[in-house]
């Protein structure tokens, strides 16, 4: 199962709820304003680093770069993908969007 989150975790509760329902073997993709959850040094960093122990988290690089961040700003262990990588993830899993 692929969970997608497109909202900033500072603005809405989508990421928080998504992580409540994500399970081992699932994947989570952060894109659009959701990429803010994947960044180092924020108040929410531990939410992600803890989650990485249980399942894979991906971040959409074009959304990261548009917002002035670079791969180096992303938490270690979060895997970078482009739109083609997003497609691959969706092909491998049923997709649940946390809007």
């Amino acid at each position, binding site marked *: *199962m692929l969970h997608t989150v497109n909202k900033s975790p500072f603005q809405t509760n989508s990421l928080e*709820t998504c992580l409540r329902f994500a*399970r081992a073997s699932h994947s989570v993709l952060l894109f659009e304003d959701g990429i803010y959850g994947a960044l180092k040094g924020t108040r929410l960093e531990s939410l992600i680093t803890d989650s990485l122990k249980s399942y894979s988290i991906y971040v959409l690089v074009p959304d990261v770069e548009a917002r002035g961040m670079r791969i180096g700003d992303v938490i270690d262990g979060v895997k970078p993908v482009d739109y083609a990588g997003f497609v691959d993830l969706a092909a491998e899993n049923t997709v*649940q969007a946390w809007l």
Partner: protein
Amino acid sequence: MEDEVIKKFLYVNRKAPYGTIYALESLEVVLIGAAFDQDVSLAFIDDGVYQLKKDQKTSVDSGIGMKDFSKTYLALGDYDVNKIYVDKASLDERGLTADDLMELVYEDEDDDYKEKSSISIVNQDELALLMEQQDVVLSF
């Protein structure tokens, strides 16, 4: 053959009614979808649980000037949409219990048409398992 495929559809509702149209237009999809004989479940999570609050009261000419569409949920049972899952944690943090929700029921044709509740209040592990079993998840 392909047309006879039965898929598991889950509608995930996470938004409050009236503030945005998602609750209403999600319900419209569910009603149309009921004609397709798929295996349909509805999940109400976060503010989505407020959609099922009883005693909603507004009309085009009074209140907030929008019609009360909550009665439509009561018809779901007649459309054979009777697997309605409500996240317990979401109810809890809002101080709500089953008594605050509309009574959504259906007649069980396998059990002498007894009237049964369509609503199951579930914990997050049960809901996570339900999600994993789906073919299609429509989020609103």
